[in-house]
């Protein structure tokens, strides 16, 4: 499911945004540069540009989400697009409609873009293979596979604070096993050329073969945080856990929870990130989540700018490129 063949059109422009894996450094930087321009739009009196006026975007959420869905919705609205929010889990599919029938129905309503969140890995990719040539698909999280816009908003947050990726040591802490965010972050960090990416987690929450992605694995939090510039916390995904992966949340917090004391191991100017929603007292202490070095709320604001950039780039291709067949 790496396929740049499906993500890019024949001129190398972004057509769908399904995964950060395999995209070039210049393309990732280009997304961040565009996001920089869109971030300024959010600070104006009128927080809207007419770029996607007349386009229709469908938010297809097969899995519940608040923050991702609303930031995609705001991003679309700030680009002047019309947006449909479809909570599929409670609608057509429960009446027995197949996914491809749902898609064709939406195509018949002249939608131009699908933003897809699905519990199955590869769902957005599958949808991208099914849609008409003018339609773009953005992956808003598929199973354990990828969550590319979250990864890019994290990269944007890092760049705003730290500028040069090549000097950075980054630690990703927590439930790597179930995390599509971690996978997308690791690919993006590798491509942007960070000095080192570490993952810190108990044995049971690390997927097999993760070392092949070029990361260093730590099971001890204090050792893993030593000298890092960026700490990216992950949410403990209790709803995805089956069986006894963890002894108890209390014990998890004792070993892997980010406290002010633990944070002292990182560089004095290290920033703390979290994709949300936060489990306070499980993976992060409130004093850190609300503390000076936390950039968690900035991540939310930047998420809108990054999603605007990706929407504008995938839909803003020349008419010739948009009509080309796959």
């Amino acid at each position: 499911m790496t396929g740049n063949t499906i993500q890019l059109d024949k001129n190398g422009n972004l057509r769908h945004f399904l995964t950060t894996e395999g995209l070039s450094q210049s393309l990732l930087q280009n997304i961040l540069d565009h996001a920089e321009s869109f971030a300024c739009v959010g600070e104006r009196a009128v927080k809207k540009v007419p770029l996607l006026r007349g386009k229709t975007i469908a938010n297809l959420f097969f899995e519940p989400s608040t923050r991702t869905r609303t930031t995609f919705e705001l991003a679309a609205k700030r680009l002047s697009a019309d947006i449909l929010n479809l909570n599929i889990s409670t609608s057509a599919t429960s009446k027995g409609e197949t996914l491809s029938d749902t898609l064709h129905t939406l195509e018949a309503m002249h939608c131009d873009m699908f933003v897809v969140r699905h519990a199955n890995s590869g769902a957005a990719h599958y949808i991208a293979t099914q849609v008409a040539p003018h339609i773009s698909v953005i992956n808003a999280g598929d199973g354990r596979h990828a969550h590319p816009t979250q990864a890019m908003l994290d990269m944007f947050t890092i760049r705003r604070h730290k500028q040069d990726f090549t000097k950075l040591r980054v630690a990703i802490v927590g439930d790597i096993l179930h995390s599509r965010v971690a996978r997308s972050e690791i690919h993006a960090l590798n491509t942007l050329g960070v000095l080192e990416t570490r993952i810190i987690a108990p044995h049971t929450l690390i997927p097999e073969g993760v070392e092949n992605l070029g990361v260093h694995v730590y099971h001890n939090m204090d050792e893993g945080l030593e000298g890092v510039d960026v700490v990216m916390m992950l949410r403990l995904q209790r709803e995805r856990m089956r069986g006894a992966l963890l002894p108890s949340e209390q014990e998890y917090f004792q070993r892997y929870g980010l406290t002010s004391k633990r944070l002292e191991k990182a560089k004095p100017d290290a920033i703390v990130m979290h994709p949300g929603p936060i489990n306070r007292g499980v993976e992060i202490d409130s004093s850190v989540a609300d503390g000076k070095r936390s950039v968690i709320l900035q991540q939310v604001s930047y998420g809108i700018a990054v999603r605007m950039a990706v929407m504008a780039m995938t839909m803003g291709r020349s008419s010739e490129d948009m009509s080309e067949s796959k």
Partner: protein
Amino acid sequence: MSDDINVKELLTEMADAIQAHTNTHTYETPLMIGIKRGGAWIAKQLHKQLEYKDPLGELNIAFYRDDFSTLGMHPEVSPSQLPIDVNDRHIVLVDDVLYTGRTIRAAMNEIFDYGRPASITLAVLVERSGKELPIQADIIGKTITLDTGEHVKLSGPEPLALEIKITG
């Protein structure tokens, strides 16, 4: 072919004309905004010569162009910068070449998304033939008549030079 166009001289004439225009209309402390990239280069020079105290604004009209659906996302990505509130201000909008008028339409739309200015004065280095919208400049450095296929292009920022090119 363009040896006879002295950009420096034109800028001095334009600065004088802008001063005269704003005096006539009693526009106090005008705010200058240049359209990226060429217009911002020109505006920088004019801003210096006119000794305006408020910082220069720069517009990147990429998000307001009317050809987005046919040409796609513009590679120029540096954001607009309007450091001063435009509400109730007299604005001097500067561009290098006034051609179809579409850029100016886009720029005015963008300015209005920042606020409601008291007035907008348009100053351009070159006005060329080929207008498609009812947009006129108040201050013009030089008017050039060109055939279709001929283009005038400003290179810069240092030195600023005008060149007429024939394409297609």
